[in-house]
């Protein structure tokens, strides 16, 4: 066998590894489910008698009229009003990152390209879904890595990086990660005329690529929490006053884990306490590393009193959140605005995905002791692989002060639907959910929670 044949064979096999056994969608046999047991299969299309045509037309017209009434009654706002919302108000706007190419080069008929997840930002009105604008990072920055907003949804803080660069006179496939350009912080305000205004934000901190930064803006928009480090370096939390530029720093000795602030529920409403989670993050992305990655058995959360002058992370309260038996470690931990509870997603997953069922609940933990005090919102996902942007688990977006009411993307009938969970009851229409066109846009944006600020 020639060298070329060997090379082709090995490259084809490596390429085919992109299709993993877990990614195989279940088989849907057309017509398989409509069959009635014991009834012989019908052969060929059925011929309807000619006199049925006017009757069918009349039935269709009646169905259209009845359907119109049904839809009108189902639309939010057209039926009886639901119970008064416990959430004070929705943020006015939300912003989310959009993937795009930063590099495109064609050489000898071969296309080389690199794309990033935050090539630009879209800002939309929560209620109407109207697009207020697209925001690009200023050159040479080409990727919005982190994004956060305040409670009103009119102020956003963005962190942009210069992720890739190609040096002149190098082969097209040599594309280097920028190792020196630090993160650029920007402030995005939505003005009275509903125009996004972007400006630089000077912070007394330098974050370089690879330090795994995450940010969370306090509900009143005056302070920014920034974490980075870990992975063999000290883990750092800075709480920076955006008015004065002063920072308070909490730091740990060198650690393997990475400090992470969740996209939702990092701060309490009074801006006093901050929840920071220990996570294992893959530093050098590769398929092997992704394959070998195993989540923690428990979730470790630090509660930091941000009014303290700073110090070591160990000064914060460390809570160990244990999952219920046979379930995954609590994920997407949300601190309720009153600071009394932590809400997290735990689930069981069966394999293979085409034959198994995922199920789980929202687990509510005491923020004082870390013990589980309640389980609510059970869901089941039946053996159908979630599609792009769909998960067999909930995504929490907003919480009422005590956590009794949540707006979330909830797995229901194998779809993730924007819903309100009040106590143990779930509904998908009515206040305080956004109405009109904004519903769908927000639902789509929520399906990538790390890229959304709402």
């Amino acid at each position: 066998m020639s060298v070329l044949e060997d090379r082709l064979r090995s490259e084809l096999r490596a390429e085919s590894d992109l299709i993993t056994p877990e990614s195989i969608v279940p088989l849907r046999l057309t017509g398989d489910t409509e069959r009635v047991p014991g009834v012989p299969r019908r052969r060929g299309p059925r011929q309807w008698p000619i006199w049925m045509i006017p009757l069918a037309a009349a039935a269709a017209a009646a169905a259209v009229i009845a359907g119109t009434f049904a839809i009108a009654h189902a639309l939010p706002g057209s039926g009886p009003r639901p119970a008064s919302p416990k959430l004070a108000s929705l943020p006015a706007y939300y912003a989310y990152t959009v993937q795009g190419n930063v590099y495109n080069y064609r050489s000898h008929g071969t296309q080389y390209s690199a794309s990033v997840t935050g090539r630009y930002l879209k800002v939309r009105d929560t209620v109407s879904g109207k697009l207020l604008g697209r925001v690009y990072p200023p050159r040479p920055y080409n990727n919005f890595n982190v994004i956060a907003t305040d409670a009103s949804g009119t102020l956003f803080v963005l962190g942009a990086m210069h992720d890739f660069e190609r040096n002149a006179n190098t082969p097209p496939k040599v594309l280097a990660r920028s190792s020196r350009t630090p993160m650029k912080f920007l402030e995005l305000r939505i003005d009275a005329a509903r125009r996004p205004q972007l400006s630089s934000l000077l912070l007394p901190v330098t974050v370089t690529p690879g330090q795994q930064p995450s940010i969370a803006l306090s509900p009143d928009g005056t302070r920014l929490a920034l974490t980075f480090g870990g992975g063999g370096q000290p883990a750092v939390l800075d709480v920076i006053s955006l008015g004065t530029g002063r920072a308070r720093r909490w730091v740990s000795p060198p650690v393997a884990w990475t400090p992470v602030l969740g996209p939702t529920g990092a701060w309490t409403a009074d801006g006093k306490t901050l929840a920071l989670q220990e996570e294992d993050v893959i530093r050098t992305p590769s398929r092997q590393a992704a394959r070998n990655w195993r989540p923690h058995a428990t979730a470790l959360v630090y509660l930091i009193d941000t009014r303290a002058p700073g110090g070591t992370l160990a000064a914060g309260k460390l809570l160990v959140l244990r999952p219920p038996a046979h379930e995954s470690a609590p994920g997407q931990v949300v601190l309720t605005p009153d600071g009394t509870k932590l809400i997290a997603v735990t689930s069981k997953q069966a394999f293979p995905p085409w034959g198994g069922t995922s199920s789980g609940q929202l687990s509510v933990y005491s923020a004082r002791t870390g013990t589980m005090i309640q389980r609510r919102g059970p869901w089941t996902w039946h053996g159908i692989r979630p599609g792009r942007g769909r998960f067999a688990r909930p995504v929490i977006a907003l919480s009422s002060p005590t956590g009794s009411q949540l707006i979330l993307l909830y797995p229901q009938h194998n779809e993730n639907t924007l819903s309100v969970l009040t106590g143990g009851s779930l509904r998908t229409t009515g206040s305080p959910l956004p109405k009109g066109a904004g519903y769908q846009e927000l639902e789509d944006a929520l399906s990538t929670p790390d890229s959304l600020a709402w």
Partner: protein
Amino acid sequence: MEGDVAHLSDFTGPARARSTGPGAAYPQQDTGHVEVSRATHAVTTLYQSHALGLTRLAFIILGDRQAAEDVVQDAFCGLFRAWDRLPDDSNVLGYLRVSVVNGCRTVIRRNKRTPRSLAVPPAPSAEASVLVGEEHRAAVAALRRLPPRQREALVLRYFADLPEQETAAAMGVSRGTVKSTTARGLAALGRMLREGQ
């Protein structure tokens, strides 16, 4: 992965094709229900065994994961519809392979465009959220620039490891055509790789 590819050519004998399915476990009654159950069970079992290998085959030819999944789904749905008409001694995997290859041809004809070069799966970290399409396989990229027939021949011969006779059956051509198409494809591939260096 090799096992997944190897079983493409393992499933050749007509007797084995039927015996691996659960058809024998069902009573031979001529009612729609039993027919449907048997066909459903058999096709589902075949799908669980062969979907991965066939999806990979379609993905290599098309370079598009979604289209590959659709082609394989269509092939199995076609098998399900045709189940009653298949003779008992039919080569079910061969039938599926031909369906997949034909489905890929239809997709290519419909799209009339170069398949996308690479898809990169997401990795669970912020660092990995930066997707790099740069991780490049030159031979695969060159393969995707070959004419569809040459591409099919090379993929069936060097990815699915099919002998010439089965490659010919899957492509619907003679064995001699497979040999010449493969030789021309390899020569063109070598030329493209040399030019790319």
